[in-house]
């Protein structure tokens, strides 16, 4: 018991841990509120929960629901007319009562809109409630009908077994009667997924602090010397990890539920959970409150079992970099399976038996799903419980066995060491060893930065040789591209002449078609053939030319505004270079991951080997060494940046050339809001500069974190939480990209803010690291 107490004390006396928990908690709550306000229905309901609940009550009391909605909608319509001083006399005569009600409404335009949104929400709920009974009662007959089809009737097939099992499982909810009510809080709290991702980071953090840090301090040697110390210690450590994970998870989820309840009101939680359409496929006969409890317990149980498995990994793998790589690879694999595998795919089991599937939304208890395991339909709840137990057992037993039997000293990469020592034979040391050479050796070899660079070289090779040629979506698009081979660039006399000649050609073609239609001297067949030919030309080249003309008109208007010479940009090609929001995300996320991986150990290694004491003893050596270290990681960042971005650019230039680079970006209609005269090339450089600056800022931040935490793994996890988690959250939100800043003409402000933030991070990092402290460097962790 005393050991447990001590472990708790160690964990909670760690300021970093407490700061992280508080910071993550605040970030989680902030994200929750932000995401809620971005949904117009949620905003409308939260703006006046009282009115929403009043409408629900009135609807429940109304005998004729259709008449209720009709009258309420008319009321809103009248109120809008009155608000804008319009003539509502007709309504006044026809619906005097509704007119009086509307006149009594003291609402502005937004509030009236919110009311109509609330009504739509209630109407959709009612429609779901009306159809629910039929949906459930027909389940058996649907199943019987389905199994009567020969393709589903194979007794040993998953389909047949699934059809047989589903009605049996849904029999439990046969008598359930959904009730109209305020479901928003339950829906919002249970659909929010960011908390789960943050909790995954916290699970890792707790494990690092409990296992990795102590190992790196060499304290396990003490534990190993006691007779029963190892088993008792690991048991206590696992207990602490488990309890902290459970308490923090409960805290986060409960907080979300409470926040949602405060924003939307809880409504009547004793109603069946199926009252919300979100839970149409829930096969559990539970109330909303019971569902919330189940939901929280389910997620917490999953996180606890994951924490046990992670503990096992931390005990069994002794290198922080290797643990990070294995965990990152496992999480990327799981995430990719969750995102990219279709539910009917041959690999569907990988999608369902998946951490991200189970941790997301209401997938465990809220949405009925059977998983195909050797053609047997296994319910997702059973899968979840089985997986949680399996992970926990493997985690606990594995961690206990590994901790008590294996040495907890860091292992070494025998092969790499041998290779390096062989290579070292050919290297002669002339005079004193330069600091940079030593740092580079430590950085690229010991911290595996070289591995990251080699992987990037391979990726760069693939990126350079990737086929970028366009598969045109229509003949018009390819005809447009063909025109642009001639017309792209500044518009000179020659190009204007070409456009005029084409215009004349199409005018002539149209005239010829009109004459042909009126011509009775040629046979019907010949007429049809010739008209078809003309139609073909007009519908492909003609349409493309019309698009060129529209672009020309746009460009002339834009040229007047910006004062630049008019020019045509090939929008089909330009879109691939400037509008690829996913590539922008992908490259930047990759760069951040490399920066985190390569930078986290730069200072931690000195603390780990206690070399920091030597450095501190040197008067000027410390600052110089820190600068050299910073330089080392910055060089790696720049190399990584070049390896990620340059091959694609070279490939693009190889495929499409540089014709558009000196043309104003605003001449592309995708950037119609842009008022700046920045060229496409300038835009690429600006984007490149911002990404490089952000990467340098990220490097400085990770460097600072490495200096503060003095532990590679803690730095990796905290940096991942700060830099990569927001990236994952915004993977699908293409508005949060530099492209959007330019297309919305907000580039100056955005670049300014990013530059300021990056410079601030760099300055703060420099200040904390390089300004001498009065106190000597001490270990925080």
């Amino acid at each position, binding site marked *: 018991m005393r050991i447990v107490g001590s472990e708790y004390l160690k964990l909670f006396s760690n300021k970093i841990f407490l700061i992280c928990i508080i910071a993550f908690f605040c970030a989680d709550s902030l994200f929750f509120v932000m995401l809620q306000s971005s949904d117009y229905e949620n905003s409308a309901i939260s703006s006046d929960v009282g009115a929403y609940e009043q409408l629900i009550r009135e609807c429940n009391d109304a005998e004729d629901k259709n008449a209720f909605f009709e009258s309420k909608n008319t009321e809103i319509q009248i109120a809008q007319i009155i608000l804008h001083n319009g003539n509502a006399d007709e309504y006044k005569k026809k619906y005097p009562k509704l007119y009086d009600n509307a006149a009594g409404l003291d609402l502005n335009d937004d509030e009236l809109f919110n009311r109509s949104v609330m009504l739509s929400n209630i109407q959709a709920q009612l429609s779901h409630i009306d159809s629910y009974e039929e949906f459930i009662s027909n389940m058996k007959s649907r199943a019987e009908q389905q199994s009567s089809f*020969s393709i589903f009737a194979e007794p040993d097939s998953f389909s047949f077994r699934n059809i047989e099992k589903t009605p049996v499982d849904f029999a439990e909810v046969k008598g359930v009667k959904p009730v109209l009510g305020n479901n928003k809080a339950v829906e919002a709290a249970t659909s929010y997924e960011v908390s789960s991702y943050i909790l995954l980071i916290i699970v890792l953090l707790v494990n690092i602090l409990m296992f990795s840090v102590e190992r790196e301090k060499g304290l396990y040697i003490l534990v190993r010397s006691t007779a029963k110390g190892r088993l008792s210690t690991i048991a206590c450590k696992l207990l602490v990890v488990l309890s902290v994970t459970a308490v923090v998870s409960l805290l986060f989820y409960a907080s979300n539920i409470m926040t949602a309840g405060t924003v939307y009101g809880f409504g009547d939680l004793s109603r069946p959970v199926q009252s919300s359409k979100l839970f149409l496929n829930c096969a559990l006969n539970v109330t909303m409150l019971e569902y919330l409890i189940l939901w929280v317990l389910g997620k917490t149980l999953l996180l606890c079992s994951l924490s046990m498995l992670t503990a096992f990994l931390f005990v069994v793998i002794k290198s922080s970099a290797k643990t990070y790589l294995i965990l990152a690879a496992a999480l990327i694999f799981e995430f990719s399976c969750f995102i990219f595998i279709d*539910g009917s795919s041959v690999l569907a089991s990988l999608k369902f038996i998946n951490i991200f599937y189970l941790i997301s939304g209401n997938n465990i208890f809220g949405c009925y799903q059977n998983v195909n395991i050797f053609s047997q339909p296994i319910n997702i709840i059973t899968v979840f419980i089985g997986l949680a137990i399996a992970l926990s057992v493997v985690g606990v037993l594995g961690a206990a066995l590994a901790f008590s039997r294996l040495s907890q000293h860091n292992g070494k990469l025998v092969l790499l060491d041998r290779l390096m020592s062989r290579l070292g034979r050919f290297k002669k040391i002339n005079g004193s060893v330069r600091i940079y050479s030593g740092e580079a050796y430590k950085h690229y070899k010991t911290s595996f930065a070289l591995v990251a660079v080699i992987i990037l070289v391979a990726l760069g090779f693939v990126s350079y040789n990737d086929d970028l040629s366009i598969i045109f979506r229509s003949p018009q698009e390819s005809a447009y591209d063909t025109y642009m081979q001639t017309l792209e660039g500044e518009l000179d006399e020659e190009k204007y002449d070409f456009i005029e000649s084409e215009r004349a050609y199409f005018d002539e073609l149209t005239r010829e078609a009109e004459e042909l239609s009126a011509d009775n001297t040629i046979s019907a067949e010949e007429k049809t053939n010739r008209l078809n030919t003309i139609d073909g030309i007009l519908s492909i080249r003609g349409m493309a030319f019309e698009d060129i003309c529209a672009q020309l008109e746009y460009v002339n208007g834009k040229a007047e505004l910006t004062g630049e010479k008019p020019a045509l940009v090939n929008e089909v090609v330009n879109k691939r270079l400037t*509008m690829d929001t996913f590539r922008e995300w992908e490259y930047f996320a990759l760069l951040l991951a490399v920066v985190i991986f390569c930078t986290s150990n730069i200072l931690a290694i000195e603390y780990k080997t206690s070399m920091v004491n030597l450095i501190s003893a040197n008067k000027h050596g410390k600052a110089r060494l820190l600068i050299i270290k910073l330089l080392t990681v910055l060089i790696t960042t720049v190399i990584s940046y070049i390896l990620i971005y340059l091959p694609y650019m070279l490939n693009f230039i190889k495929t499409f050339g540089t014709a558009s680079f000196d043309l104003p970006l605003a001449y592309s209609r995708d950037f119609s809001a842009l008022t700046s005269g920045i060229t496409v090339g300038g835009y690429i450089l600006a984007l490149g500069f911002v990404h490089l600056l952000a990467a340098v800022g990220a490097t400085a931040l990770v460097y600072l974190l490495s200096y503060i935490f003095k532990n590679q793994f803690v730095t990796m996890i905290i940096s991942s939480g700060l830099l990569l988690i927001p990236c994952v959250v915004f993977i699908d939100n293409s508005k949060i990209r530099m492209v959007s800043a330019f297309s919305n003409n907000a580039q100056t402000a955005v670049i300014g803010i990013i530059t300021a933030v990056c410079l601030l991070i760099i300055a703060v990092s420099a200040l904390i690291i390089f300004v001498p402290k009065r106190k000597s460097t001490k270990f925080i962790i």
Partner: protein
Amino acid sequence: MKKTTAMMALLLTIYAAVFFYGCTNKSSYSNSDDAYINYATDMQLMYHIGGNAPMTKSDKGYYYIGEDGIVIFIDKETKKATPLCSKPNCTHDDPEACDAYLNLTQKPDTLVGAHDSAIQYNDGYLYALCGEYDKSYINYNTYLMRMKPDGSQRENLTGSFNFYAFEWFIHRGYFYCSTDSSVIRIPLDSPKSEPQILYKTDYYIKSSLRAVSQICAYKNYFYFTADERNEKEEGPGLSIKCINLDTLEINDIPKAKGYQVFYNFFLDNTMIASYYDKNSDENVYLKCDLDGNVKESFFTIAHKDNLRYSTDGKYIYGDNCVQVTRKDAEKQIITVYDLNMNEIDSYVPPEFENIVCNYINPQDNEYFIFESVDDNGERILAMADKSQLGSIGGETIKFTELCKLKWAEKKDSNYYVEGQARVE
């Protein structure tokens, strides 16, 4: 004596091999209900050549894919239809949740007929050409999807194509498709291999269906219409070509009396082709060998009375849809002939929103499957038994309603996003 015994033993072995080969699963597909084609391994002519029916036939029934992307299975035994989804808790109205939904590749509106053969059954699997935009909604990726007959175990068989596939089908172990300028094929046993180019032209319009169209295959021959012209109308122009799949030799179908001959359908190792004789204002139908060489005349019909002919291997069907479209005829009538072109019956297909019924392909020799409308005006899928042919006498064919046609709203948010991306 020894020789005789050895010969006997050899003959017995060969006989046994042939006999037992007939017991394997594969043989159950071969020529099970007609000798027209092997529907399990060959391109299903009766669902493709006559029109654009998004249908296919398996040994257990038929598959139909509607405009909403929901695949409907029609059981041959029970004559009932259901979406290809084995979840009783699915109402099939949500493409995100329903297993019957296929994300079929989207073709530009201008490419009429490009949806031909949207789904095909072949050798124990269903195939469809699926596609989706990349995450940035810039590039559209198309690939061949394969799944089990019950809709399970879907897989991206080929990976994303680096070309735009227009018309396609599976035939004798290969995926064939037309691009804007070529005919290519990919072996199904090595689906990620580099496509083999069977034909390529230099005179074409990029991304246009015109250069290669009307592809079909019969036995070991591949046929297509080549309209070799670029944007400037330069090139050799229209021709009908044939590829011998044994030798991969490409030949033009020979002209008859100076007129371009078009293939109509195939019957008993014979190509039934036709041309329009300008002088006599008649359509002349010919029996040709599979290389397109004329063997004999089949029949002649006045141009104004010409019908669209097709066959299921048992009957020949003549459809007056062209006359209806031209408003020369009031209603659509299908005339049924025997294989010697003796008229045996005629019938009116089920009503379809007061227009020409979409799907009057010959289909197999057992059933017709139509799109129609029920009493409430809702679009439905209907099925008619071909055993009534010979006794309909020009009336509306008797049919049974199978199920509604539209189950879900098509998931086409890609186009929406693309439209929204450009701020005009």
